Each structure stands twice: as structure tokens, then as C-alpha cells.
């Protein structure tokens, strides 16, 4: 796995930024603003938001596997144990105190 320079470690609670930006975004709309936790730190990767426009992808961004309770994403009615897990870059996450 790549080295990881990002802000978060396994187990950290995080919120996905509830933002809209022009350009090429790999953070799905449905997960923005949702709260989950870092399940796994994948390491640093070239930034697709730059690569998509012919850029060099630098600086690299740390990629995390972030887990969310389905009920926290879609509301009650979801089976309580079920999760959705999304690969999200560091700059799309914020810490929760």
C-alpha cells in the first residue's frame, strides 16, 4: 500500500463535505454531508480532479475506505447492520470533534 500523509486514521469519525464544485468529482452525491468512520487508510494517490483535466495529479491525496450505516445515509427502514462503504479522498472529509 502507498504511504499515507492524510489527516485521518482508522476509526476516526468523519463527515463528507456537503459541497458542490465544478469539475470532475469522485465523491458521489448521495454520500455528501453524511457521517461515517474511516474503515481503512489506503494511502496516497494522484488526485483525479487534476488528472481529469490533463493535470499531473499532484499533490497526491490520501484515499480512505469510509463506512456509513445505511440508516444514516438513506434513513430508517434500512437493515440496522448494513453498511455502504465508499472510497473517499482526504480533501472531501472533515473531522468531527
Amino acid at each position, binding site marked *: 500500500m502507498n504511504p499515507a500523509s492524510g489527516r485521518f486514521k482508522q476509526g476516526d469519525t468523519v463527515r463528507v463535505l456537503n459541497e458542490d464544485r465544478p469539475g470532475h468529482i469522485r465523491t*458521489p452525491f448521495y454520500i455528501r454531508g453524511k457521517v461515517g468512520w474511516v474503515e481503512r487508510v489506503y494511502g496516497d*494517490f494522484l488526485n483525479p480532479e487534476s488528472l481529469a483535466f490533463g493535470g499531473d495529479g499532484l499533490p497526491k491525496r490520501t484515499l480512505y475506505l469510509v463506512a456509513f450505516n445505511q440508516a444514516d445515509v438513506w434513513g430508517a427502514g434500512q*437493515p440496522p*447492520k*448494513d453498511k*455502504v462503504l465508499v472510497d473517499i479522498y482526504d480533501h472531501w472529509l472533515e473531522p468531527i470533534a
Partner: protein
Amino acid sequence: MSATNDQHGHEHPRHELSHYAKRIYAIRDLLLEKGVITEKDIQCQIEYQEARSPANGAKIVARAWVDSEFKARLIAEPKAACAELGIDAAALNEFVILENTEKVRHMVVCTLCSCYPRPILGRPPDWYKSFNYRQRSVTDPRGVMREFGLVLPDDVEVRVHDSTADIRYLVLPLRPRGTEGLSEAELAKLVTRDSMIGVMDALPTLP
């Protein structure tokens, strides 16, 4: 066949092809004329994809079922473990194995496009790329699994992975009960493509 060959040996479109279908041949010819890519490049890519199929994944899974040390290496260093079996996973940026258990099932989708472990399994099936799957899999994974014939009790945790970035996932399905007598090659026949995407379990018995 939807193309004919001209005197240069190039396949060319016939006019019943759709607009974009024809355009790829025009683009291909221009790229060759300009030397941007070569005939050999194209042929290599066609052969590369044809050599990739779910049989690769089935081989990996069957080995993991019969050899717990291999399974541990597969989970820790998936690409190196593939190389042990002669499966070239080099083209994958990162490769991650999701191990199913009696209490946990994984399912993989790419809601944004159609990310898929092509260097292992080949091209994704049509249903994987469909809007219905991309839309529903994250909200209703159990409903999708039911359509594929898998009904899970409530106490099983379903984990849907939305493959949005550089990681490519392969589900390691659960070894079906009562398969102790099967050889590794027979076990591989139980491992369907769909079981490695995670919408169903491995087949319970030989097909």
C-alpha cells in the same frame, strides 16, 4: 460480423452501423495514419482482454478455499498472490479482496461509472454497467441480491462497496457447505462471476 476488410487488412464499417460505431473506425484509421498508435497496439489490447475472464477469479477463489495460507497472503498482498497462480494483476492500481463470511456479505458497484477488476475478470457484464444496478445497489442491495437468487437473513450484515477511486475489489465468496469432497478444479466451477461481484453466493453444487 459487422465489419469488412479492405485491401490494407483493416476492418471497415458497413453502413448499417450506428453513427458512433462508424466513427470509431474513422478514429482508429486516423490514429494509425498519424502513428499515434499501431495495429499491434490494438491487437495486443484485444488479446489482453480476451485472455481475461471470470475463470481467473474462480482459480484465485478456489485456491483460497483449499489453502488457508494462500488465503492469508491473498488478503494481505492480493497482487503477489495472483502472481503465484500465474495471474497478472499488474495493471490494477490497488487490488483489495473482500472476504465473505456466514455473517457478512460484500457487494461491489461503481455508481459513478463502471469500475471493475478488468485485468482479473475481463470486461464487466452489461447488468453491472446498467443504470438500474448503479442506482439501486447502494440503497437496496438485498433487493438486488434477491433478484440474483440470494435471500439473506436479517442478522447477516450487507456491506456495499461503491468503487469510486483507485481500488478494485473482488469478493471472496463463502465456500459452500458440503463441498469437502470436491477437488480444487471442481470448486472453481462453483465460483461464478456474479459471486465475485457479490450479488450472489457461489453455486452450492456443481453445475
